[in-house]
Each structure stands twice: as structure tokens, then as C-alpha cells.
């Protein structure tokens, strides 16, 4: 008999994920398909599928509050593309998204009141998801319902179990942080220092990476293993270069010189066109985009390095990594010209010194030598 979990007062079911799925008529077999796909999403080996199944069916649905600050909404867009399918949407059934001001229907004071109520009810246990950077230059640069981003973040972080910073803006400052950073934009980790933070960078991040991190939290109740700048190693442990299918061309020295030349059409390495793959860590090369359909390099465009801090100021998307970012030839010419002038001056001075010392030179004669 299927359990009936719909409460009479209309609030969301707070049973375990297993109970929720059962109440919705999701068969065990479907649940297995979901677990297998989730394991694949989380880049976990297939042998862990039974363990994931067990953990997920017993997982309690955490309350999730999503705050959007100085962002372009690309991260939410990326995520909602993951939401269109029933498999990945189960992740969202397994969380209780209590506040998301782009996606939710409510607005204004009612919405803010709902957020505050959710935070109070689940104090210490809710997940805070943040996208967008926080302007410190003037709190008025970015506000929601009159509340500045800084204030909303510090308030909301107090009762959060963990914070997931989604997108390069929230993790490292992103495009607002790029030179000259007119709003004084900073990342979540620059403000909150006393809560565990998972950084999920990318411009935007790959949707399954976002859902994979959520799935990990649901399954294990803890943060995944993070690298030295807070990114989950499961997705950001390998560089694009080390996983790129065009790597054999790099190793053989076969490069595309321009877009649409013969090398580009043959699918050769894009290093010379400015690919930042060697210094970028992300899952694009294996997990790919649009449900595994393709990714930038496969489509013929060099990697921008969008999951690394300050990638906007990295010298230009089309300047290869081994190229200087400034105009060195101009520098060299000016330096040579200046040095020529200086060299001529110093040379003249030296000659002068030499001539002067020649003048005061007293010739030694044979008589001087005979003295004893």
C-alpha cells in the first residue's frame, strides 16, 4: 500500500526521499534508474550505486534557500535546463526549494517573509545556495526587496548548514570582479568565513555538476572532497587539457592556426587560438554539455577557462597561454632605444675617462728603471 504523505494543510512532504517517491507512484525500478544516473552524474563508480540507493531513499529532504545577487541568471538558466527532465528533476523533488526569487511565483514582502520563516524553521539545517557576486563598493548597487546583498548573505548564512556558491561570480567574483571592478564585487568566501562553502564555478557551471553536488549532499549528508580553492574534486579534479580528446594533436604538434583553416576542420588542437584548457579545471571534457552532446572545444572554440578565478583578466580569450599579455615588442623597442641613448652617453663618458687618464699618464723611461 502506498503511503499517503500529502498533509491536509498543504505544506510539502517532509518524509524521506524514498517515501516521497513511493507516494508519487515512482517504482523501485525507476528509482534504480535514478540512482544509476545520479551515480554517473556524481562521477562515482557504478559499484557505489546500491549504496547511493540506500542513502537516497533514507535521506530527509533538506530545505534549500537560493539567493541571487549580482548575476546574469545564467546559473539558474543552466540549472533549469537540468530540471526539464524527470530524472534530474527528482533531485529537486528531493530538496525543498523554499526560496528562489527568479523561479518562485511569490514576490515582495510575502516572499521575504516566507524566506525568513523557512530559515527560522530549519535553523542550522538548511542549505544556502548563492549565485552572483556581492558588491562591497556601495550596498545600494544590488538589493532585493530593499535589503543589500551583503546583509542578506550574512543574515542567511547564520543558520545554514552549508553554503553552495554556484557560478564563477559567487565563487571568485566573476565578471563584476573583472578589471576595474567598479562595484567592488567580492565572492561568497570573501565574506563568510565560518561556514563550510562548496565552490561550484563555471560560467555557467555544467548543470549536472550543480545537481551532482546537491545529490552528494543528499546521499552522504556532508560536503564532497574539495580542492585547494573549494571546488569538488569529483568534477574539478582534472584539467580540461588532461581529458581533452584533441590532446593527441597537441602532443604531435598539430595545431589549428586560425578558425576554419584546414587544421581547425580536421579537429586539431586549439592551443594557438588561445585555449586555456591547460590551466583550467572542470568536467567539460568528460561530462560535456547539453546532456553530453558536445562542449566548446568539440564545437571548435578554445576553452575560456571559465571555472578559474579572474579568467576575464587572463590576457584575452584568443591569446595563447605561452604568449605575453602585454605588447612586448613595443617594450623591447623602447628599451633598446633608451638603452642606446644611455649606452652612447656612458660610452662617451668612458672614453672621456680613458682620454683623461691617458693625458696624465707619465711615460716610464729607461732612466726610471735604472734607479735603485
Amino acid at each position, binding site marked *: 500500500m502506498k503511503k499517503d504523505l500529502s498533509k491536509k494543510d498543504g505544506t510539502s512532504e517532509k518524509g524521506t526521499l524514498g517515501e516521497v517517491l513511493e507516494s508519487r507512484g515512482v517504482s523501485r525500478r525507476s528509482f534504480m534508474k535514478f540512482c544509476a544516473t545520479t551515480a554517473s552524474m556524481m562521477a562515482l563508480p557504478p559499484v557505489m550505486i546500491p549504496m547511493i540507493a540506500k542513502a537516497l531513499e533514507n535521506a530527509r529532504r533538506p530545505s534549500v534557500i537560493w539567493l541571487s545577487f549580482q548575476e546574469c541568471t545564467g546559473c539558474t538558466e543552466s540549472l533549469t535546463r537540468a530540471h526539464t527532465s524527470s530524472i534530474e528533476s527528482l533531485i529537486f523533488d528531493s530538496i525543498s526549494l523554499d526560496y528562489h526569487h527568479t523561479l518562485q511565483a511569490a514576490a515582495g514582502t510575502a516572499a521575504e517573509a516566507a524566506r525568513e520563516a523557512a530559515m527560522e524553521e530549519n535553523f542550522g539545517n538548511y542549505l544556502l545556495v548563492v549565485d552572483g557576486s556581492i558588491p562591497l563598493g556601495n550596498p545600494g548597487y544590488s538589493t532585493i526587496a530593499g535589503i543589500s546583498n551583503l546583509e542578506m548573505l550574512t543574515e542567511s548564512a547564520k543558520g545554514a548548514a552549508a553554503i553552495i556558491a554556484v557560478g564563477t561570480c559567487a565563487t*571568485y567574483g566573476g565578471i563584476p570582479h573583472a578589471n576595474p571592478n567598479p562595484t567592488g564585487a567580492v565572492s561568497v568566501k570573501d565574506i563568510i568565513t565560518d561556514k563550510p562553502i562548496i565552490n561550484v564555478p563555471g560560467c555557467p557551471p555544467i548543470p549536472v555538476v550543480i545537481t551532482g553536488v546537491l545529490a552528494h549532499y543528499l546521499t552522504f549528508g556532508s560536503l564532497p572532497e574539495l*580542492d*585547494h*580553492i573549494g571546488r569538488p574534486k569529483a568534477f574539478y579534479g582534472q*584539467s580540461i*587539457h*588532461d581529458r581533452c580528446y584533441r590532446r593527441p594533436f*597537441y*602532443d*604531435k*604538434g598539430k*595545431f589549428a592556426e586560425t578558425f576554419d583553416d584546414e587544421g581547425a576542420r580536421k579537429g586539431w588542437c586549439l*592551443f*594557438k587560438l588561445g585555449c586555456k584548457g*591547460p*590551466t*583550467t*579545471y572542470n568536467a567539460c571534457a568528460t561530462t560535456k554539455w547539453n546532456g553530453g552532446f558536445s562542449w566548446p572545444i568539440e564545437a571548435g572554440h578554445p576553452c575560456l*577557462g571559465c571555472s*578559474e*578565478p*579572474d*579568467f576575464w*583578466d*587572463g*590576457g584575452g580569450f584568443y*591569446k*595563447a*597561454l*605561452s*604568449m*605575453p*599579455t*602585454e605588447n*612586448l*615588442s613595443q*617594450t*623591447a623597442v623602447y*628599451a*633598446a632605444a*633608451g*638603452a*642606446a641613448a*644611455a*649606452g*652612447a652617453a*656612458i*660610452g*662617451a663618458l*668612458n*672614453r672621456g675617462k*680613458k682620454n683623461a687618464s691617458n693625458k696624465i699618464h707619465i711615460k716610464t723611461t729607461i732612466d726610471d728603471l735604472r734607479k735603485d
Partner: protein
Amino acid sequence: MTEIELLSWARGPGLQIATIIFVAGVVIRIFEILLLGRKANLAESKGPEMSSGLRTVITRTLPDRTTFKRSSVTIVLGYIFHIGLFIVCFLSAPHILFLRDIIGFGWPSLPTQVIDAVAVVTIIALLATLVNRLTNKVMRYLTNFEDLLTWFLTFLPLVTGYIAFHRIGMTAPTLLAVHILSVELLLVVFPFTKLMHAFTLFIARWYNGAISGYRGVAS
């Protein structure tokens, strides 16, 4: 400072500073040498100066038999690592790109495996020169701090370049930044050390050939 900030600095302001010091240093020193001039030779010249000088610049590339017998280890190792450095610096794709950005044109590169092999051989040769310098009695007697410094500054970019390429140890942006910074260090110290021989060798060889030619003897 984040890794990418360090890398951006190394590729940007760092390279500019290094270029200025390197170019200015080299140009000033060469001007100084040339402007010092030579003492007027009042004897009558017995042969051509210029052609003998120019020819010597080329022929001095090969050592004569006595010199070779006396310092064969130094000479052979020296050839190996100089040629190796040339191949690694000027015939590897990322470096050609770097130079193309500065001088406006590039040239074909060698495959990675070849560059790899050459780099390894060069590293071994450089290590062998250090061992030779420290074990050979005469070499040890002559060695001073500057010799060891220049050896180290030459060795560092080679090793860090290999490590950066093959991603051993630190994360990628740091590896690349370290390599570029080691090159900048080399450039900055270059004009103040014996590494200037890269430019002065032409002047020195020419001079030797010139004075021999003036006296009408072979050089």
C-alpha cells in the same frame, strides 16, 4: 594572490620588466664595449681585418685539436646543452607562439616527443657539466659564485618547463607561472653575468680574427 593572478602577472607586467632590464642591459653593455674602441695600431697592416674577423666568427665554432684534447668533456657537454637549449627554446610550439607575438612571424615546430627527448638530454648534459665543474680539480679551483648562479638560472627554466608541460606536482596555473617567472629571473640577471657571452662572443671572435688578419697570419 590567486594562481591565475600570479600567472597573469608573470605573463604581463613581469615579462615587461624582465624585457626592459634585459634589452637595456644588453644594449648598454654592447655600446660600452664598442665605444671603448681600440688603440690605434701604427704598424702597417699585412692583410685584411674585416674578412678575417668575420671568417673567424664562423670558424671558431669548432675547437682546434689541442684545445679539444685538453677540455674534451667540457666542450662536448657544452655543445650538447647549447644545441639542446636552442631546439627547446626555438623549435617548440608554445615558444614559437611567444616569439611570433613579439617579432611578428613564426616557423614550423617539432613534435612534442622530439622536444621532450631533447629536453631530457639537455637536462642530463647540464647536470653533467655541474658534476664536472665540481669534481675536476682545475674547474673547481676556477669556479666562483657567478658560475654556479648562471648554471642554476639556465637549469631552472628547462626543468620547470618540462614539469609544467608534464604536470607533475602543483596545479597547472602555478606550474606555468613558475616556469615563466624562472625565465624572467634569467632575463633580469643575464646582462650582469657571463651569460652576455651570447652576444659578446661575436665581438670577441671578430676581434681575434681581425688582429690576426691585420698581422697577416691565419686565425
